[in-house]
C-alpha cells in the first residue's frame, strides 16, 4: 500500500509502509520489473529523484 498524500514517486523506487513497525512509515523498495530496464546512471538518478520528490520539508 502506498501513501499518496506523502509521496509522489514515479520511478522504480517506490514507497511502502513498513508493516513490521507501525504500518505508516516510509520505506523504499525496488521494483525489479522496472529496474532492469534502466542503466546504472538512470537507477541512481531515479533513487535521488524519488527521495527529493517525496514531499520533504525543512526541519525547523
Amino acid at each position, binding site marked *: 500500500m502506498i501513501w499518496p498524500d*506523502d509521496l509522489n514517486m514515479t520511478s522504480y523506487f517506490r514507497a511502502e509502509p513498513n508493516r513490521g513497525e507501525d504500518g505508516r512509515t516510509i*520505506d*523504499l523498495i525496488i521494483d525489479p520489473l522496472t529496474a532492469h530496464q534502466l542503466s*546504472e546512471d538512470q537507477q541512481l538518478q531515479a*533513487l535521488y529523484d524519488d527521495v527529493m520528490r517525496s514531499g520533504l520539508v*525543512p526541519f525547523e
Partner: protein
Amino acid sequence: MPVRVTLRTGPFASPFRKHLASLMESPFGDSLVLCSGYIWETDSASSGYKVLDDLLAHIVRGCASGTLTTVAGKLGYGDYVRYYRNFVRRIRGAGVRVQPLIAPKRNWHAKIAIRMSQTSPRAAIVGSSNLT
C-alpha cells in the same frame, strides 16, 4: 547494477557503517544525501555513544566543498527530534553546510546514502541500518 549485500556477524563490526564511511569520502563527489529513520545523537553533555563519534570526520572530509542533505523520520518517538537537532548542529559546528529535511508526517524510514557530485548522483547505498 552490481549489488553487494553485507551482514553483521558480531556486535562490534558493522560492514554497512564501513561502506557508508567510504561512500561519504569517495573522491567522485563533493556532497551527500543522508537518510535514516532514527538518528542517535544524544546531548553533548551525555557521555554515551553518539553516531557522529563515528561519522563526523568522514562527513567533514567528504562535504567540505559541498552540502550535506539530511532526511530523518520517526520523530514522534521519544527524544528523536532533539537528537536530530543535535545531529544537525554538531555537523554545522564542524563547518559543513547542512540542509536538514523531514517527511511531512514525520514517518520517513528508508536508510539511504547518495554520494553527489554537485547535483548528479554518483553512487548510493540502500540499507537497513539506522544511524544509531
